[in-house]
C-alpha cells in the first residue's frame, strides 16, 4: 500500500527488531545444533569438541572444519534404538492424528451447525483446555488411569472387567493423552472452514435427491479439505516430537523420539548425539512444516 513512499525510520525499526530477534534466537540456534551434531562428545565444558578457536586465526578455522564429521549420523543409522524410536514416533503420530480427525470432525461439524450465538461459546469451551497446562491435563489422566483410579472403579462397578486392567505405562495411555491434549488443535481449524460452508450447496444436493451421507462425502468433506489439512498438520508435527505425554503416561521400554533427545541430553549428557537426533527429526518434519507454513500464510493473508 505504501510502495510509493519511502519507509520511515519507525517502519524500518518495526521490521528489523523482530527480524533480528528471530534470526538470533530461532535461526542461529538451529545452525549451532547442526554444527554440534557434526562434533564429538568430550569430557569438557562445553561437553563437545571441536570448539572454534578464534584466537588461532585462519588455522583455527581450518582445524575446526577438519574436526567436524558425519560419524554421529552413521552411528544413528546403525543403532536400532534410534531407528525404532523414530518409527514409533511416526506411527503414534499418524494413528493419533487419524483418531483425532475421526473424533474431532463430528464435534467441529456440530459446532458449525448450532445457532450463531452459541458458536462463540462452544468455540471458547473447546479452546479453554488448550490454554491450561499440558502438564496438568496429562497429570489429571494419571489420576484417572491409575490402578485404583476412577476409570477402573467405573469399569468394575459396571462389571465390564473382572480384574482392573493396567492403563498407565502402555501405548493406550499415550494415545488417550495425545487425543485429549490435541483435540482443540483439530477441532478449531475444522470449525473455521465448516463455519464458512455455503449451506445452499447442501440444500441443492438434498433437492436433487442426494442422500445425506452421500452429500456429506461428496460436498461437505471436500469443501472442508483445507481445514482437514490444517488440523492434521497442526497435530501431526508436534506429536512426533512430543515429550511430556509419553514420559508421564507411557512405558519405559520403547521411547518416542522426544524422549530419546531428552535422555541423550539430560541422562547421557551426550550433546552431539542429542543434536544429531534433533537434526534428523527436523529433516523428517521439514516437508509437513513447509506445507503447513504455506497454508497458514494463505489463511492469514488471504491474498
Amino acid at each position: 500500500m505504501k510502495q510509493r513512499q519511502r519507509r520511515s525510520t519507525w517502519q524500518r525499526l518495526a521490521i528489523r527488531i523482530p527480524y533480528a530477534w528471530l534470526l538470533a534466537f530461532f535461526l542461529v540456534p538451529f545452525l549451532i545444533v547442526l554444527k554440534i551434531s557434526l562434533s564429538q562428545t568430550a569430557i569438557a565444558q562445553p561437553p563437545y569438541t571441536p570448539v572454534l578457536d578464534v584466537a588461532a586465526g585462519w588455522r583455527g578455522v581450518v582445524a575446526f572444519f577438519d574436526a567436524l564429521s558425519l560419524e554421529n549420523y552413521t552411528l544413528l543409522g546403525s543403532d536400532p534404538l534410534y531407528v525404532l524410536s523414530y518409527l514409533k514416533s511416526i506411527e503414534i503420530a499418524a494413528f493419533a492424528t487419524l483418531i483425532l480427525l475421526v473424533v474431532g470432525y463430528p464435534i467441529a461439524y456440530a459446532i458449525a451447525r448450532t445457532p450463531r450465538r452459541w458458536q462463540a461459546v462452544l468455540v471458547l469451551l473447546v479452546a479453554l483446555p488448550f490454554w491450561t497446562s499440558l502438564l496438568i491435563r496429562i497429570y489429571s489422566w494419571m489420576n484417572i488411569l491409575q490402578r485404583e483410579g476412577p476409570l477402573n472403579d467405573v469399569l468394575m462397578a459396571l462389571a465390564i472387567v473382572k480384574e482392573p486392567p493396567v492403563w498407565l505405562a502402555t501405548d493406550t495411555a499415550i494415545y488417550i493423552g495425545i487425543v485429549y491434549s490435541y483435540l482443540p488443535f483439530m477441532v478449531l481449524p475444522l470449525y473455521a472452514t465448516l463455519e464458512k460452508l455455503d449451506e445452499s450447496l447442501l440444500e441443492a444436493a438434498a433437492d436433487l435427491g442426494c442422500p445425506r451421507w452421500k452429500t456429506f462425502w461428496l460436498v461437505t468433506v471436500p469443501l472442508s479439505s483445507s481445514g482437514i489439512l490444517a488440523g492434521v498438520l497442526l497435530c501431526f508435527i508436534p506429536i512426533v516430537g512430543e515429550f511430556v505425554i509419553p514420559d508421564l503416561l507411557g512405558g519405559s521400554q520403547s521411547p518416542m523420539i522426544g524422549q530419546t533427545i531428552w535422555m541423550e541430553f539430560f541422562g547421557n549428557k551426550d550433546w552431539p548425539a542429542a543434536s544429531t537426533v534433533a537434526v534428523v527429526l527436523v529433516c523428517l518434519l521439514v516437508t509437513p512444516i513447509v506445507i503447513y507454513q504455506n497454508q497458514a500464510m494463505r489463511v492469514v493473508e488471504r491474498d
Partner: protein
Amino acid sequence: MRRVSAVNIAALVLGLTFLYLPIAVLVIYSFNASRLVAVWGGWSTRWYAELFNDAALVDSAVISLRLALASATAATILGTLAALALSRFGRFRGRLPFAAMIYAPLVMPEVITGLSLLLLFVAIAAERGFWTVAIAHTTMAMCFVTVIVQSRLADFDVSLEEAAMDLGAPPLRTFLSVTLPLIVPAIAAAWMLAFALSLDDLVIASFTTGPGTTTLPIRIYSEVRLGVKPEMNAVCSIMVGVVGTAVIIASLLAKLAGARGAAARV
C-alpha cells in the same frame, strides 16, 4: 432457523464431557482428605493449606509468575511489530524467510526449540537462569502473538489508515491514533495467551534454565513423575482456576472488539 440434529448434540455433549471430565476429577480429588489419592476420605482443604507452607513451591510459583510477566510483555511488543511488518508494510526484502520464521515455531517440537536455544546460550557463554528462560519463552510466544494480531489487522479496512495519511497524518501518528486503538483487544488477548504459554511450559524451561531458577512446571513435573500426589492435585487446581479465569477475560475482551475466531485461526 437451523435444526440441530440429535447426532450433533451427542457429538457436542460427548466431546465436551471428554474435555472437561478429567479436569473435574482433578479438582474433586484435590479436596480429598485422604493421603491415598485413590481412597476417598471426605472433603477437606488440607492440601491447599499445606501448599502455602511449602516454601520451595511458593518460590517456584513466584519465579513462574515473574517469568510469565516479563516474557509475555516482550513477546507482545515483538509479535505486534512483526504482525505490522507482515500485514501493513507491503513487500520488503527478506519478507518470505521472515514469515517462515514466524510460522515454524508454532509447530516446532518443544524439545528442538529448547535444545537449540540452550546450545546457543552455551555457545555465547551466557549464564543460565531467569533471563535465558525469559528469552526462550519470548521467542516461542511472539509467534503466537503475531498470528493473533495479524488476523485482527487483516479483519479491518486499510482505507481507515489511508484516510488518516491522506489527511496529512504522519505514519507514527496514524498508527497511534487509528491502528492501535483498533487492535488493542487483540493485543490484550495475545498478551494473555503468551502469559499462559510461559506459565505452562515445561520442556523449553527445563533446557534453558540454570541452577536456582526452578519454575513451577519443572517442580510439578519432578514431583508427579514419581506418581500422583494430593498436594499436586491442589497446585494444579489452582493453576487451572487462574488460567481459566484469565482466558475467559481475554476472550470477552476479544469479543468486545469483534475479533471472534482469532484464536481459532492460530
